Structure formats: C-alpha cells, structure tokens
C-alpha cells in the first residue's frame, strides 16, 4: 500500500461522488432509454425521427464535448432566463447537476438501442395473448413486456454502466469534486502524480470489478425461471 499522506479520506469522498453520479445517471438513463425506444418503435413518424436525431447526435459527439456543451449551454440558458426576470448577477449552475444531466442523456442514447432490440425480440404472440386476456396496454407493458425486456437488456445495460462509470471522470473538467478532481488536489499538494493517479486508476478498477460482480448477480436473478438450474 503506498503512503497516501493523509489523502486517503479525500479520495474516498471523491469515490462516493463518482458512484453517485454513475448510479443517478444510470437510473435516469434507463428511463430515457425505455422512453426513446418506445418512440423509435412507435407508429408516429415524428416520434421516430426525434428518437433517431437524439441517438445519432449524442452517440456521434465525444462525451467531453457533450459535457462541456451541457454545462456552458446550461449556464447561458439559466442566465438568459435570469436576465429576462431582471436578475443582473451571474448565476452558476451546479457541476453535479450538469454532470448527471449530460451522462444521463449519454446513457439514454446508448440504452435506447439496447431496449429497442430487447422490445423487438419479444414474441408478438405474448402481447396479443395478454391483450386477449383483457389486460390494458399499461398492464401488458408492466407484467409481460418489462420483466422480459429487463432480462434481455441487462447485459447491454451493464456494458453501458461500465462505460459511464469511467466517463464520470470527465465531469472533473467542469469542476465536480469527484475522484479525479480530488486526486488532482492530492497531486498538487504532494507532487506525486504517478502514485496518486495510479491509486485512482486502481479505485476505478475496483469499482469496475464490483460492478461486474453485481451485474452478474443481477443477470442471474433476472433470468431466474428462464434458464435451467445447473445441477448441484
């Protein structure tokens, strides 16, 4: 274990923020993904087009540029609204909110494709059977589609989570004090960039390993009753 010169606690704090950003972005991203996937599968041409534009734009632009754009765009928007209401001081927006917002949109764009594939892979007969039993659209969605879509989409969502977990490091650029930013502080004080960046790298690696184990458990749980139980 390298000597962290008392900066261990700071790195732990940063790790906590990193995890919060990643998990919140995942929750919002999954919701966005499901919603946009429904748009892409809908019969409305406008909804399909809007969905396509969203996923193409977000997936074609670097995450760093996207995060900066959301941050500066957000600052400008908030200030213009402020000025319109007669507020003459500069308003800053919270880096945490901007970061979660940008990463949620990024997660959502990738998740859209995963959900679209999952919804399309459901046998049509099941939906028809559910409707024939008198279930409404929402009930069919909740009881028949969603549990199966969840099982099919989970591996894809897991991969996106691992990507987003690493992209949280980019939010340090707009000043959020997550793991990367805290590491930079420690480097500034101690003049030991290699030690501390390597330490940060291993913390990210640890988070990745924990996430992979958690995802494995979730996948097994989501697939219960579907795959035959392995012989003990």
């Amino acid at each position, binding site marked *: 274990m390298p000597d962290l010169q008392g900066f261990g606690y700071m790195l732990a704090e940063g790790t906590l923020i990193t995890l919060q950003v990643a998990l919140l972005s995942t929750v919002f991203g999954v919701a966005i993904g499901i919603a946009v996937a429904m748009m892409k599968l809908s019969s409305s041409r406008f909804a399909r087009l809007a969905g396509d534009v969203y996923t193409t734009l977000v997936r*074609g632009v670097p995450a*760093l540029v996207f995060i900066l*754009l959301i941050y500066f765009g957000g600052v400008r928007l908030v200030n213009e609204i402020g000025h319109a209401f007669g507020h003459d001081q500069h308003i800053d927006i919270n880096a945490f909110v901007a970061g979660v917002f940008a990463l949620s949109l990024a997660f959502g764009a990738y998740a859209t494709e995963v959900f679209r594939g999952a919804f399309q892979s459901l046998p049509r007969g099941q939906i028809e059977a559910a409707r024939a039993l008198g279930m409404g659209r929402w009930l069919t969605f909740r009881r028949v589609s969603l549990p199966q879509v969840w099982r099919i989409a989970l591996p894809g969502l897991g991969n996106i989570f691992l990507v987003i977990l690493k992209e949280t490091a980019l939010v340090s650029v707009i000043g959020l004090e997550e793991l*990367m930013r805290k590491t930079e502080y420690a480097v500034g004080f101690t003049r030991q*960039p290699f030690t501390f960046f390597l330490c940060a790298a291993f913390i990210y690696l640890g988070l990745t390993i924990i996430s992979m184990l958690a995802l494995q458990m979730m996948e097994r749980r989501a697939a219960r009753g579907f795959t035959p139980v392995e012989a003990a």
Partner: protein
Amino acid sequence: MNIGVMIESIPALLGGAGLTLRLVGLALVAGFAVAFLVALARLSRSPLLWAPAYGFVFFFRGTPLLVQIFLVYYGLSQFPAVRASSLWFILREPFWCALIAFTLNTSAYTAEIMRGAIQAVPRGQIEAAMAIGMSRLTRMRRIVLPQAIRIGLPAYGNEVILLIKASSLASTVTLLDLTGVARTISSVNYMPVELLSMAALIYLAMTFTVTRAFKLLEHAVSADRRQPPIAGGSSQKSLSVASGQAK
C-alpha cells in the same frame, strides 16, 4: 446562437481536426500492431504469456482514459530516472504522451476484438487445414486471418469511432486538437456554446464518414456472403444468406 462566430471559427477548428486525425491515425496503426501481439499472447497456452496480456487488457479497459493520459503525462515525471533518461525529450511532450496513452488504450480494446474474431473461426476449418498438412503459419495466413478479419471488422469500426471521440481528451493535456481549439477560442471570446457546437458537428461528420467507410469495407470483404447478382434483376444484398450459395 451566433451563427457568424460559428462560421468564422471553422478554419481554426479544421486545423484542430487535423491534429485529431493525426493522433487517431497514428494511435490506430501503432495500436493495431501492439494489439496483435497482445491477442496472440492472450491466446497462448503459457500462463507466462496470457497472464500479463490479460492484466494489460483488464487495466486499460477498466480505467478511464483520462487517468491513463494523466499517468503518462504527469505521472512519469515523478521519477527522476525518467527525467534524466534520454527518452525525456519524448515524454515531456504532450503530443507523444497523448499518443502513447491512446495507443495503449486502443490496443487493449483491439486485442479483445482480435481474440474474439480469431476464436470465432470454426474449429473444423482449422482441423481440416491441419489435415491437409498446412503449417501453423500457412493456416493462420490462409484460413484463420481472412475469416477473422471479416468477423472482427464491424467491432473494429466501432473501436475506431470510439477512439475518434476519445481523442478529445487530448485537450486536457494542453493539445490543440479539435476540442482543444474549441475550448481555447471560447475562453477568449466567451462563446463556448457556439464553438463546442461547431466542434460537435465536425466530430459528427468524421464519425459519419468512418461509419460509411466501414460499411463499404465490410461489403468488400464479405464476397462469400453476398448473393450473386440476378441476371436482369437488381442485386439485393442479403446478410443472412449462408455461404456457399454464392458459388
């Protein structure tokens, strides 16, 4: 949105895009070579070969690229031995540091693509090649690699696009790539939204071009899966047609 500022910034941004392309191009070439060695090591039966290769891939795929760049650019200077070495004139340049980080990063991802593609070549074909007495090298050259290239190409196309986007991190070590130029100009004229939007459009154009190029390339190398053009009719391409039908 100030459209005038956006248009005025195009020449400077394109200059930045040139650096982006140079970084990406060099990292892809060098990364491909490193990846090939790592993939071979990963496929080897000797733990002395595959264990380090596995560790390499796991580290570079499991940590953020930003950390990797900072480790090379800021990290290495921590050691007096590095600063005294004859390599210091390379390792103090942000360009080379970014290039090293990009190369190692893309080679880890590419190695996994290669490994998957090589392993996906049907076992029977390799056995057949062995049965006719082909040597290991001939087998690799004539049977395994041509098919592995076909199998791995779509995934590799994705990796190229990911690297183009990831190269925007070069701006964090003071390089004036596409993102770097956009950030520098906007710190002077206070128009970040315009500059970043324009940069985003140029990135989109680049990724779009690469996507198209890989579609063409995939088409070119998958002659065995295409249906022969029907005389007088339009030649429809079908992806699910089994090979052999074309003959």
